[in-house]
């Protein structure tokens, strides 16, 4: 458990001023349980739709090739030869940066994109790159840069399109653009100030700065990807009474030994936990703000969130299916639960399997699903749509 690294990946993009679509493309593929991750940033020649097509094609091909074959050089060459040729310039062109992470081994292949930046905490790390050169069928030379290293805690890989490195070009401060060295010191300053800054926030900061240097009218598509190797944030998700009363104690043990956030979904479950821990349950009743569809939360000292069970779980799955972004939805117990779920990387589900006899009443006015089924749906959404790691234990 101690060596566990979580790999957080995010990218941010601003399209060229007055363009409808960005000509950069960023793509990430994660294999089951993050055993291998492939991220590609590609910048298509020119801007707009044509560039987007080139970039999408390039990044998709790159990701698939790398996933299925080992020989990077061959893959890169094939990609370069497959791309459609621009009528005016007679070249097929899309730059790319491919990052492949397998366990802690990182391989990065760059083709004509600005150099990536590697940091360890707030220090910039220099990497020796190997040049791979070759000749395409149309006699054109190409040169790829290959870097290989072992990732450790606190590493960040920052890579971007030339919209970032050339931002501000022509201005007094940066006549030839923002430039790699200035970007490095900018990044290192930010990390010094906020050592735990997320991949998302860092990539946002970088592109906002680039946009500002372009006087808020981006001269090119601006894209920045950040990969952050950090300790996983863990969540223990408890729902449902154990099938056998003698296991109540076990739930309490799990809570005591857990290092991370804890949520409990279920009235009976929360009663069991409160009893086992010798704590009180208090309902958070706001009589002016009652939602007829979602029961209120309650609190138990030491537990991050306590909600009702079946209704809340059902609604949570519904929201997770329907939306990808929750920041604009008015807070309620479901949103609170979702925020905690999405804020963590690894979620341990401890699910009781006792059937609630009161829910079997045919007079019940709405459909209440069996807990196990809801949890299974929730897990598959969290894994596939929100890229979380999960572990499930029935009790």
């Amino acid at each position: 458990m101690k060596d566990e690294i979580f790999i957080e990946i995010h990218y941010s993009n601003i399209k060229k001023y007055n363009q409808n679509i960005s000509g950069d493309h960023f793509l990430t593929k994660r294999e089951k349980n993050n055993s291998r991750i492939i991220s590609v940033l590609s910048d298509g020649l020119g801007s707009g739709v044509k560039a987007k097509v080139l970039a999408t094609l390039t990044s998709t091909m790159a990701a698939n090739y790398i996933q299925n074959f080992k020989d990077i050089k061959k893959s890169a060459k094939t990609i370069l030869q497959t791309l459609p040729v621009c009528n005016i310039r007679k070249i097929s062109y899309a730059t790319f940066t491919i990052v492949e992470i397998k366990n802690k081994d990182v391989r990065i292949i760059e083709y004509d994109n600005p150099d990536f930046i590697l940091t360890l905490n707030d220090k910039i790390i220099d990497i020796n790159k190997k040049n791979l050169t070759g000749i395409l069928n149309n006699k054109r030379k190409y040169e790829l840069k290959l870097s290989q290293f072992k990732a450790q805690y606190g590493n960040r890989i920052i890579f971007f399109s030339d919209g970032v490195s050339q931002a501000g070009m022509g201005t007094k401060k940066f006549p030839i653009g923002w430039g790699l060295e200035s970007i490095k010191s900018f990044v290192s300053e930010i990390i010094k100030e906020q050592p735990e800054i997320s991949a998302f926030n860092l990539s946002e900061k970088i592109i906002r700065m680039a946009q500002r240097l372009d006087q808020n009218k981006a001269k090119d598509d601006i894209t920045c990807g950040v990969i952050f190797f950090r300790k996983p944030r863990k969540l223990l998700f408890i729902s449902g009474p154990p099938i056998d009363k003698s296991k109540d104690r076990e739930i309490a043990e799990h809570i005591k030994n857990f290092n991370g956030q804890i949520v409990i979904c279920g009235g009976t479950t929360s009663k069991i936990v409160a009893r086992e821990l010798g704590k009180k349950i208090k309902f958070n009743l706001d009589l002016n703000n009652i939602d007829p569809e979602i029961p209120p939360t309650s609190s138990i000292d030491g537990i991050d969130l306590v909600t009702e069970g079946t209704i809340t779980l059902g609604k949570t799955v519904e929201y997770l299916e329907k939306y990808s972004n929750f920041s604009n939805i008015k807070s309620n117990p479901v949103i609170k639960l979702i925020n905690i779920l999405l804020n963590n990387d690894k979620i341990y589900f401890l699910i009781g399997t006792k059937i609630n006899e009161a829910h079997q009443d045919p007079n019940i006015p709405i459909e209440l699903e069996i807990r196990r089924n809801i949890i299974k749906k929730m897990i598959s959404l969290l894994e596939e749509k929100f890229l979380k790691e999960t572990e499930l234990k029935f009790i």
Partner: protein
Amino acid sequence: MPKINVKICLGTTCYVFGASSLLLIEQFLDDHIKNQIEIEGTPCLDLCKQENKTNRPPFAIVNNKIIENATIETIIEAIKGKLNNENNK
């Protein structure tokens, strides 16, 4: 005089049978009664799970009196009953 305690069960079963609307009971009470009661939510009271399923959700408890199939009216009735008892003592 201690306040009259009104517990409303917020377990799943009671909630889907309309317990959420019972939380609005204050709106239906005169001010002088409002000051004499306290309303709180409680996790499932397990009343819905008893063997002899004559009990119907939603459940509320006014002091120690269990009210089944509770409505705003039946709870108010119980509160008034308790108040009268207190006054007659």
